[in-house]
């Protein structure tokens, strides 16, 4: 046997206790070295994450100096507009911005073509609106200020009136911002600077969290102090959800076909085509997203514009769906492949058809893995900016998306847009936008993860 033919030299080595001990020490040492390396890798990743969060939070919170055209304290007790009845809010508008009242009617009550707003009678412009007595046949310009005020009072609710007063009368402007670290550690200096530069003109200094309810619920604005992310949040939700609804069934369907119907085929032509398709899908996963944007622009925005309506949510969702399809297909394929073939055999052995086997055995077992791929795809869809810029998502939009064919913007574009503005305050608002984006990502992913856990539990419990 082979043992007997080992050379005496080799046998010597095997018996050498000292050599073994020395060797063992160095083996353990190498192991410890690798372990240290893995540990450092984790620490590095963790530090990078901390730095990211710190950087964002540092901008999103801090002292600001805000000035008003008219100080709210002069309008309401403690500056609390919410305590004022609607009549007083309208009075404030009449007193301060009488000549702008038709503009508010147009912005808040009128949905049609702005070009004809001043020329047609009110009855033709405003259908579901309570008009002041005897004004139905007049154009907006022919109304007295009192009648215009009555029109606003009768038809606009208090929250919107407050928004108009804040934006048009109080006109808050941010004069300076400080970072969170400065706010925490250099308070005296900030205080002194404020007294020296701004106190005289009646501005106020206060600690502002840029993430607040107003930020989440206000539309975009050309005034950074009043700017909000609502339209972008809704746009992102719309686009991502529609994207998933398109990409999930198509991606999973393609994966099922590749794995369950064509793979393992001995027919060399089918096998070759299969391999070709798979290679291409894997390559597509690495294509820069901007190229998908160009594709979406050519197909969905231009060629299919009668169906999609051009630069709309559905065009964006279709483009994003194309972008994340490879991710979903690849992950679903892996998940389906990981289902033990013994389970398929058991099902077939009991007289199941192929579809029954797929539906009752393969898919339930693969679902957690499929959902993992969907989570990855969804995260990518939330964060992608380039393709949406290419297909022409709006950078400034005041309206909420209302349907698949409405114009839209999304958070990454809002952030990109804000960071490229010259005003410092927008950069701070952008930091707040990033936090909103991260939280949204977390919520959507958590939902998918909960679904995945549920699917997994049903397999083991």
């Amino acid at each position, binding site marked *: 046997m082979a043992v007997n033919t080992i050379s005496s030299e080799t046998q010597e080595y095997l018996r050498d206790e000292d050599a073994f001990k020395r060797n063992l020490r160095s083996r353990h040492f190498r192991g410890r070295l690798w372990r240290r390396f893995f540990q450092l890798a984790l620490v590095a990743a963790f530090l990078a994450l901390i730095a990211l969060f710190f950087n964002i939070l540092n901008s999103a919170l801090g002292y600001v100096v805000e000035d008003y055209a008219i100080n709210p304290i002069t309008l309401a007790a403690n500056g609390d507009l919410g305590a004022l009845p609607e009549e007083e809010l309208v009075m404030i508008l009449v007193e301060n911005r009488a000549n702008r009242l038709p503009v508010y009617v147009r912005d808040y009550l009128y949905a049609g073509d702005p070009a004809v707003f001043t020329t047609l009678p009110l009855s033709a412009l405003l259908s579901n609106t309570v008009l002041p007595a005897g004004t139905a046949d007049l154009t907006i310009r022919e109304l007295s200020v009192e009648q215009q005020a009555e029109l606003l009072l009768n038809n606009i609710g208090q929250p919107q009136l407050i928004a108009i007063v804040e934006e048009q009368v109080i006109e808050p402007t941010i004069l300076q911002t400080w970072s969170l670290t400065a706010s925490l550690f250099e308070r005296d200096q900030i205080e002194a600077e404020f007294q020296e530069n701004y106190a005289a003109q009646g501005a106020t200094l206060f600690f502002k969290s840029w993430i607040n309810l107003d930020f989440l619920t206000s539309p975009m604005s050309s005034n950074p102090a009043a700017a909000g992310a609502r339209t972008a949040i809704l746009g992102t939700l719309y686009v991502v959800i529609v994207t998933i609804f398109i990409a999930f069934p198509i991606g999973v369907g393609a994966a099922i076909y590749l794995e369950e119907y064509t793979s*393992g*085929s001995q027919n060399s032509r089918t096998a070759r085509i299969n391999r070709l398709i798979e290679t291409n899908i894997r390559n597509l996963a690495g294509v820069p997203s901007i190229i998908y944007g160009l594709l979406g622009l050519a197909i969905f925005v231009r060629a299919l514009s009668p169906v999609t309506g051009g630069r709309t949510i559905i065009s964006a969702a279709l483009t994003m769906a194309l972008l994340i399809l490879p991710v979903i297909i690849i992950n679903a394929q892996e998940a389906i492949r990981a289902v033990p073939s013994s*389970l398929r*055999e*058991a099902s*077939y052995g*009991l*007289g*199941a058809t192929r579809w*029954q086997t797929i539906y009752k055995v393969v898919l339930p077992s693969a679902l957690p893995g499929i959902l993992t791929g969907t989570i990855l795809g969804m995260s990518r869809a939330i964060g992608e900016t380039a393709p949406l810029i290419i297909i022409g998502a709006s950078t400034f939009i005041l309206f909420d998306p209302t349907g698949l064919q409405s114009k839209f913007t999304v958070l990454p574009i809002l952030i990109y847009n804000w960071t490229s503005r010259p005003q410092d305050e927008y950069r701070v608002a952008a930091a707040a936008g990033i936090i909103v984006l991260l939280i949204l990502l977390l919520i959507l992913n958590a939902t998918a993860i909960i679904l995945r856990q549920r699917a997994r539990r049903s397999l083991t419990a």
Partner: protein
Amino acid sequence: MSAAKAARQTTGAYAIELHNVNVFYGEKLAVKDVSLNIQRQKITAFIGPSGCGKSTVLRSINRMNDLIGGARVTGEVVYNGENLYASNIDAVEVRRRIGMVFQKANPFPKSIYDNVAYGPRLLGVRGKKQLDEIVERSLKGSFLWDEVKNDLKKSGLALSGGQQQRLCIARTIAIEPDTILMDEPCSALDPIATQAIEELMRELVKKYTIVIVTHNMQQAQRVADMTAFFSIRKEALEGGKDRRWGVLVEYAHTPQIFESPQFEETERYIGGEFG
């Protein structure tokens, strides 16, 4: 399968007849020219060394080989008077009549109840009462009922290896096949669990035809009425490689195979000289 033909044939002595069956994987011949008749309501054991094609033959009986890409069967497998490989036969129907239990217990990651109800549900049984009845009868039929009747909602994967295999048997008999193929059903089990399965087989054979592949010759001796011994033939190719295929060497009553085999090869295998 036409009802008249099936009725005529069920009275025949043989449940399944294999006529000159060859199995190919792609271009490669795996089993050559197997002919044997499997008797109704008896246990037939396939024994032989690894690679002799006994599992391949077993899987050709209920067309499980169809699932392997490139597998091809020539010759005839006659069941109830019809060739199962005729073009008008649906493999799904074949597998519904000829059930299978696998080497490694493979319960679905579902509850015990859902495991057993899987087959009946495939066939369209929906009524809760009906399913309850089937589940209870099948689990009793596989001697598992007393151990699991209080936690039918528990996952089938939570059972021990032997229990899992009995669950798989319960799952198979839930659709009332008339033949059960068992591919080394005890090879992953301890002796006590093996004994339980063997007892179960002796019980099941009163109602079903059973074909079992086993590596364990004592097992074949203990449970089988008939035994088929398969072996390997090889042919040298250029470059030191060879081509191997399986053949049926001898098929007879179990005592005859083990006590007075006709072929020297059988004797040598049973004597433990190769395998």
